[in-house]
């Protein structure tokens, strides 16, 4: 220990060379590892902040999708749906439509009319979140606010939806397409269930979560046969993919390089220690000739290398802190730099601890 300390302190040129190398390596690794951490955080942030939505569409623009409540519940329970809104509709009268929503945003046309809707006092768009038997009627239906709209189903005329008109929208003329009434989704579903009729949805929009595992979500949807045919699921993840693919590739590259850099550090530890100890081969031989065991000579040389490495790593950590801030400090990475450098240093120390003492006898200055 004493011998190693003396060599460390009284041989400043060698010590400084080794310290400078380890400090540079430690600072580099700190900054490199920090850049991996930052890239990973950026990737996490991309997954957390880039919105991915999905919707269900039908076979064509004129043919809306149809899916039952069981499928709807399976999609919602997939673990990937953060928020959803759905729609259903049925034909009423001869050419009108009753459209059931759980959010006004589920209908683009009504959303557009929203600022001009005339409301019965105490009602607004939030009615779609409730279960009251109310509706928004077109002005062309010539119904007054508070009046009851009686809407017999076209497929079964005996079933009549009786809804209080709490909002009026649009102009006084509905053209040739027929009028559309809007009511809360549970109201229509309840009507179907009361009359023993199969209920089906015609639209579903979702905001997805857990977007890192979108592949799993898509696989689940394929199992539910939502990947084509009459009803298909569309996931808007193009932006997420374009951003995360590049980031993930970057992180993967950095992570692949990291172990190679540690191998390089071990090699540098060997070369540096070899060069520094080469000039002290004679000292090692003298130690051996005085009776020092090989392991003692090895320990002395290794300890000296360790003192240089620890000092260098501490300075490297300080440099990394000054350059990249506190986040760059990672004790595990510092320990790995030390371990790799010392592994190389140990190989060099072992080489010189096995010095041939006989050659010392023959060497005459």
């Amino acid at each position, binding site marked *: 220990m004493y011998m190693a300390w003396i*060599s460390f302190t*009284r041989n400043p040129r060698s010590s400084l060379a080794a310290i400078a190398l380890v400090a540079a390596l430690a600072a580099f690794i700190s900054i490199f590892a920090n850049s991996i951490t930052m890239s990973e955080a950026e990737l996490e942030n991309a997954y957390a902040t880039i919105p991915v939505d999905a919707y269900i569409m039908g076979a064509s623009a004129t043919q809306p999708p149809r899916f039952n409540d069981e499928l709807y519940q399976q999609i919602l329970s997939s673990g990937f749906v953060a928020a959803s809104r759905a729609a259903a509709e049925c034909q009423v009268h001869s050419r009108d439509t009753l459209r059931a929503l759980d959010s006004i945003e589920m209908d683009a046309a009504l959303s557009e009319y929203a600022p001009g809707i005339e409301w019965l006092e105490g009602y607004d768009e939030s009615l779609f979140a409730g279960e009251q038997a109310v509706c928004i009627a077109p002005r062309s239906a010539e119904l007054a606010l508070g009046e009851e709209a009686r809407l017999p189903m076209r497929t079964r005329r005996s079933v009549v939806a009786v809804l209080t008109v709490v909002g009026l929208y649009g102009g006084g003329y509905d053209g040739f397409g027929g009028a559309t009434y809007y009511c809360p989704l549970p109201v229509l579903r309840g009507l179907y269930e009361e009359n023993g009729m199969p209920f089906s949805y015609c639209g579903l929009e979702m905001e997805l979560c857990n977007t890192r595992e979108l592949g799993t979500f898509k696989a689940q949807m394929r199992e539910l046969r939502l990947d084509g045919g009459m009803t298909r699921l569309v996931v808007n993840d193009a932006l997420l993919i374009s951003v995360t693919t590049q980031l993930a590739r970057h992180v993967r590259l950095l992570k692949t390089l990291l172990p190679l850099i540690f191998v390089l550090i071990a090699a540098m530890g060997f070369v540096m220690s070899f060069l520094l100890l080469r000039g002290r081969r004679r*000292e090692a031989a003298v130690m051996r*000739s005085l*009776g020092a065991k090989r392991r003692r000579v090895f320990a002395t040389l290794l300890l000296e290398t360790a003192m240089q490495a620890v000092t260098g790593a501490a300075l490297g950590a300080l440099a990394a802190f000054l350059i990249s801030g506190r986040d760059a400090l990672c004790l595990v990475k510092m320990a790995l730099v030390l371990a790799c450098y010392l592994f190389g240093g140990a190989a060099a120390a072992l080489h010189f601890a096995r010095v041939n003492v*006989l050659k*010392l*006898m023959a060497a*005459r*200055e």
Partner: protein
Amino acid sequence: MAELQLQQTAYAYCNKYQTVQALKGVDYQFESGRFYALVGRSGSGKTTLLSLLAGLDFPTEGKVLFNGKPTAELDCDEYRRDDVAVIYQSYNLFPLLTVLENVTYPLELKKTPLPEAKAIAKEKLLSVGLDEGHLKRFPAMLSGGEQQRVAIARALAGGAKIILADEPTGNLDEENGAVVVSILQRLAHEDGYCVIVVTHDMGIADKADEVIRLSDGRIVSSESAADAG
């Protein structure tokens, strides 16, 4: 009483082209309290013999016995630490250690407590004529003669009773050489050490109790001072 004995000691090594027989069946007995000079031409086997006596290598045939035990059967590190000490022509001091630290090193190997080790080291340095003023100097600050005296003090500090010296005056001027030889003589005659010196210098050989001539790996003659007188 420490005793070194060569019994039909032979040593061969292979170089790139051939097997070299450096020593051929040497028999001899070295005793405490005597000063031996090993002389002979270059390549006669002197340094090989010294390295076998120092436990740095082992004979390929025959034995080197220390107090009746073959050195090959001893722990050679312990043997070098406790029983023999080697002094080199080029001193081989640790350049980064002070004089005192150089002499303390063998005691450190023996786990002697530091204050005691320092006291022993100072005593040995004084015995070779180096005073307090030299203790904190580094080898590079000393003359060749002083460095060789530090090397002798280091050899003595370990407590070995056999001193092997390989051309100890080879790098010294006549005056310093004479001082070193007189120290070695004193160690043999007054302190009971067995001192074996490899030398080309017939001036040293003349002061030895026994002069052993080596030629072609064999002892060709052995003269004691009494015989010569």
